[in-house]
């Protein structure tokens, strides 16, 4: 009888035990976990080489107190050095007492020197980390990442937030910036092309003057000056190493081939005078011929007249149509950009256009035969078709 009663009341006893354990956990609030009040939210990380070591500059978001009603994001930069990136991240905790969390890290910037070695050898820390989103933006910068991350932005509270604006969808449509994410960079690296690209960041003083070249030391006044950022150049990578740098025009050509442009502008000539044309629609295609040493790069764009360097009567201003002569000039300009982009990529050993990948996907046999010849042995056939809005 007693045993039966005991068994019958087991569920109730279990409920009480579970409730007691839950309450204990609730009030003790200690699972060894890191809550919001102990967390350093890393917004961006910059990675530089410092001799044999790595130097990591982390931009941490600092919450404003409840009395602040102005909004915005305050940030603070923490610099650490270590043998590995992981080492540097751990040091943030030992130096500040805050537990660094990468879940909101939306930007990783590589310093120029760090980008010249096998980047995946240190970026793999982020790829392995389950708590780090591989959708975060990745970029290379002129000089050191530390300088870029610690610079004061003229357009946002934190430099990382200002830089992230450069990589927006709208900016990408202009054709002058080619953002990339950690995941896509890794896919390029581990894929058959072993190539990838990253936007190349530069800082400029707010007044528009160029930053002093990396060789000369900036004065303290220049250091404190608010900066704006550009990412018109694109760094090319082969086997994880930065091997070439595309100019803004070449970046545009690359964007056009990717078919991503729908709001950019470029300059052509009309009657010997410069004119600016607006890109409305873009279709780019890269195809390998039956003979894989020949590739066809074709770009078809729709443009409209934007601005010319001459005074024009009002009737002309009201028309968006582009003359045949200008269209021809535009075609030549774009061909030039494409050709130059191809040369730079080939020289850098970067299979930027993924020819190896295309060949691999279309024929394993041909891939085995030609993989070592791509892309340097490929003769490109460049076709540009510029049409005007009527």
């Amino acid at each position: 009888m007693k045993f039966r009663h005991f068994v019958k009341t087991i569920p109730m006893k279990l409920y009480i035990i579970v409730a007691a354990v839950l309450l204990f956990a609730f009030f003790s609030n200690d699972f060894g976990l890191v809550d919001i009040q102990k967390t350093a939210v890393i917004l961006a990380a910059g990675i530089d080489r410092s001799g044999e070591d790595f130097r990591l500059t982390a931009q941490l978001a600092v919450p404003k107190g409840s009395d602040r009603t102005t909004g915005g994001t305050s940030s603070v930069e923490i610099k650490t050095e270590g043998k590995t990136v992981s080492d540097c991240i751990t040091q943030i905790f030992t130096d500040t007492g805050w537990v660094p969390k990468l879940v909101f890290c939306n930007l990783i910037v590589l310093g120029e020197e760090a980008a010249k070695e096998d980047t995946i050898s240190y970026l793999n820390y982020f790829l392995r980390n389950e708590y780090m989103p591989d959708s975060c933006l990745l970029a290379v910068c002129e000089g050191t990442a530390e300088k870029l991350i610690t610079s004061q932005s003229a357009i946002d509270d934190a430099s990382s937030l200002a830089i992230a604006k450069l990589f927006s969808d709208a900016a990408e449509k202009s054709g002058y910036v080619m953002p990339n994410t950690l995941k896509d960079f890794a896919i390029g690296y581990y894929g058959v092309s072993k190539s990838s690209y990253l936007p190349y960041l530069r800082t400029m003083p707010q007044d528009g003057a160029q930053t002093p070249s990396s060789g000369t030391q900036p004065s303290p006044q220049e250091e404190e000056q608010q900066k704006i950022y550009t990412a018109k150049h694109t760094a090319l990578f082969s086997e994880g190493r930065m091997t070439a740098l595309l100019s803004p025009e070449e970046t545009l050509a690359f964007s056009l081939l990717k078919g991503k442009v729908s709001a950019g502008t470029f300059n052509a000539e009309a009657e010997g005078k410069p004119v600016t044309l607006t890109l409305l629609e873009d279709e780019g295609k890269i195809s390998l011929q039956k003979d894989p040493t020949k590739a066809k790069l074709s770009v078809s764009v729709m443009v409209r007249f934007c601005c010319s360097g001459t005074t024009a009567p009002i009737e002309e201003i009201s028309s968006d149509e582009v003359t045949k002569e200008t269209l021809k000039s535009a075609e030549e300009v774009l061909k030039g950009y494409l050709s130059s982009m191809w040369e730079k990529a080939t020289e850098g050993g970067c299979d930027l256009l993924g020819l190896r990948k295309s060949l691999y996907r279309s024929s394993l046999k041909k891939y085995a035969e030609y993989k070592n010849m791509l892309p340097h042995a490929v003769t490109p056939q460049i076709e540009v078709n510029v049409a005007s809005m009527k």
Partner: protein
Amino acid sequence: MKQITGDLKKSVDALKKLLPAEDILTFPFSSEGGIAFTCVFADPVTDKELLGEQVVRPLSRYTGAATSSEVKKHIVSPEVRTGTELRTLADEVLAGNPVLLFEGMDEALILGTKKVFVRAIAEPSTDVTVRGPREGFIEDLKINTSLIRRRFKTEELMIETSEVGRRSKTAVALCYLEGTAKRDVIEEVKGRLEEIDVDIIPDSSYLTHFLSSRPFSLVKQVGTTEKPDIFCAKLAEGRVGLIVDGSPIALTLPYLLTEDFQSSEDYFVSAYRATFTRLLRLFALLVAIYLPAFYVAAQLFRLQLFPIKLLLTIAGAIRDIPFSPSLEMLLVLLVLEVLNEASIRMPKYVGMALSVVGALVLGETAVSAGFVSTPAIIIIAFSGIGLYAVPNLIEQTGVLRLAMLLVAGSVGTYGIVLLTGFVLFYLVTCENFGTPLVAPFSPIVGHDLKDSILKYNYGSLKTRPKTLKSPNRRRQK
């Protein structure tokens, strides 16, 4: 059982022995013909004016024979019955029905001159509608049944009254539509009512305990309504209803969880609007239960649930709060519950002041003093409002919200998922009167989904809900 005899004095004495209370009075009088009568009645619950008007005055002029059939003819009341057993007569007296005894007869007359204290029929405060009937049940069984009878002019409406409660002998009316309600359910309800052995039934809510298959469960298993139109609609769907004397809340069986997401107004507005509002109630309820829990779990265990801007705002707001996020939320929730409880119980004129105190003093000052953060108050405010979107489930959802908060604060988001799974399993395996609580979602009854959280046009609802297994399925051609 003791019976009355023809000896008036002995009978009155026997009855008074059974009813020794001081408020049980006797009124002896004689007719012109010389017959001695004694009326035994309970003073507080007998309408003496009616008794004088309908019984004493006509009988004092009576000159006929001393037989109950003759005497009965001279009483001008529509409700006169006869009784012989002393116990029955005593129960009738206690129920407010005076007993008339007279010399030479071994039978007494039971007179229906009960004094009825009733408040006016008014709109129930718990179920207010903009469109549709505004009548609500009151505490009187007869008036409540009359409100139902008025809506069903059919012989199929059955109202079977029984008494429940050893001492209270509360009248309980079992209402159903013959041929529409499932016979098994009717019999089971009758059976369970008969099995009840309890002192008193002061309110219908006492019955729910005896009518539930899992009486200790937090989950509601009996439907409730204060409105006769809803009650009748439920009877028409094939349910069985119970009205308890002294309670304005009627019970309906079998109960489905979806009922509480429905309002009578849904049937008076367009189907689109009704569907939207039902979905809105469901959403509000889910927000009420889950929002505080997710807010706490996100802060403690999974920051990524917040967009970065929101995270920083929250981080800024809680920076100087001395409590952990879970304790802070529990504190605010308890304060809300206390305010809620106090504002319900307090006199109305104080209630107004209390809401000012609650809103301004406790809210604003607590934030300024850094005891709690603004986001926590906003979260609890949202949750509090959401809870009232489904007022009939407040008891259950309030507890569930607290439980969710506890698991969120101790186990995190996975605790919320697991508790949801536990509640889900419990709900889907819950049955009462052979009807699954979560039907028509589990088990899925496609036909009944037309009037569940969704609401189809009335033209599509030609048959009664399958779940209720009504023997007469068709309700419109």
